[in-house]
């Protein structure tokens, strides 16, 4: 977690998110896995077989 800023206020949630490399890893792996890989494979699986 991000440390409090010099003024003592909690950091912005975006800063907290960006400082968490494990969250970045999860987002960076999940997003293309779903949008590119799984969807692409789904397209290939659903190609109808030639009669």
């Amino acid at each position, binding site marked *: 977690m991000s440390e409090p800023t010099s003024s003592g206020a909690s950091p912005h949630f975006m800063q907290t998110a*960006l400082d968490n490399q494990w969250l970045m*890893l999860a987002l960076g792996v999940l997003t293309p896995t779903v*949008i590119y890989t799984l969807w692409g494979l789904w397209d290939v699986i659903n190609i109808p077989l030639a009669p």
Partner: protein
Amino acid sequence: MATTTMSDFRVDPVSGLKIHKTANTLVKWNAFAAVVFLLVGGLFGVGVALTRMPSVQLLSPEWFYMALTAHGLVNLAVWIIFFEMAVLYFLGAHVLGNRLATPRWAWAQFWLMLVGAAMVAVAVLAPLWGGAPSSVMMTSYPPLEAQPHFYLGLILFAVGALIGCFVFLGTLVVAKREKTYSGSLPLVVFGGVTATVIAIFTIVSGALILIPTFVWSLHVIPGFTIDPMMYRVVWWAFGHSSQQINVVTHISIWYLIASLVFGAKPMSEKVSRFAFLLYILFLQLGSVHHLLSDPGLTSAWKIFNTSYMLYLAVLASMIHGLTVPGAIEVAQRRKGLDTGLFTWLRKAPWGNPIFSGMFLSLVGFGFIGGVTGVVMSVEQVNMIIHNTMYLPGHFHGTLVVGTTMAFMAVTYWLIPVVFQRKIALAGVAKLQPYVFSLGAWVFSIALMGAGTLGVQRRHADITFAGQPLAYEYPEIAKGLMDLGEIFGIIMAVGAIMFILVVLASIFTGERIPEGSAPWPKVEDADVVAERTGKHHVGMWGMEAPGTFILAMILFVTIVLYYFINFKYLSTIWGLS
């Protein structure tokens, strides 16, 4: 928990960084291996270039495909990923004044990558000593089949790189726990995190497809085959994303060099971090532009991945392309070069290869690799150039003009810091970025010209002489191929100049002893502005008007290039 003492560190007089000695040894070995592989891959590249010249055609087809496979794998993967390992350890340990987490695993990374690369090399070069070929080219599409140790070598190499990524992430955990930095990670290290995230997706995708392909090549399971379409979808998540790791790493290097040479700070660190987040989410989707002409895959999938989502990654690239030169401009103006539109650029240190290399990388990547990459990702336009020489032209515009040039530029800074040697052959180093970039720029543009005229890639003889389907390309296409490959040789000369400087510096350069006096530092632009009271710079209400003009030129170039390509498409694919 490992215990470290102050004797495990040294303070580098060149950079002022606290250097962990074990981490430094690993940075050295990874960087050295990278440069050796650059030389090896480059030599095969010269063979490819001299064969593709219609007027020379140096190698026989068998040797050509072997050389092309070796050149692609060594220069697209081995040189670059070894260098990236060096950069990640440098960022995680040296930039944060930190120790490297789990040095033993880091050595496992190095040896696995080295053994993996050696196995692939043995498989690819086997015809030289009468062995069975593995000339399947970098993509190794089934049903083309290589020897099993070709795939196993790639898997070991990828596992090594994956270990390196987790050593880097672990090193960040150590830095956080031991409080070697406060607040958020420095932007350049966050760029390293972005590259690592993309690398992990890339390597896992590679494993998902290469492990079954390895099993298939063993022929131990009767009836087990690899579906070529599934292979292509998953392989490109590995093959293209691996090049996106390079893009992120070289952009991080641009930020680093802007800070080192000018004392520049990003125009808006928040915006730059957000741009890196866009990369984390969307940059890998660029893989689909290799599949835009594949039947079976739906247009929804193709267009969503390119037009809808990839453009968010393009937005990120445009942000970086604006903020890096913008930061340099603001720093130069704050230091007194605040007249006219481009005085800050004209009076930049063009004789310093760290800067000249970085700026040539930035401009070349934007105008050559970037613009063409965006336009070719349009499904309709892609049909003009798919599987033509345009592709090698484009990716040399990103990986050579952009990534390799940036890596070379930062090496001129890393040699004194990491190897503790002054740069030898300084005159050669000064010229090198210009020679290399001249060769690489013209090479890329000429090949893209030939590709636009339909010249096929992946063929030893573009004329298909003596073949049943011989095709006569226009003379200008052959001329462009000759021109491109001549400049390819100039690019190779630039690469050899770089390798000479690196080897001469490492082995004969004047030693920088530990504990020697600190080198003069480039003053932080903000500190100078504070001292001189020059807080408001620029003109027309903009802090970086020159960069704004450059960005507009890039934007207009993209728009014009779109129109030119759609106009060309309409002439070769009539609708009525």
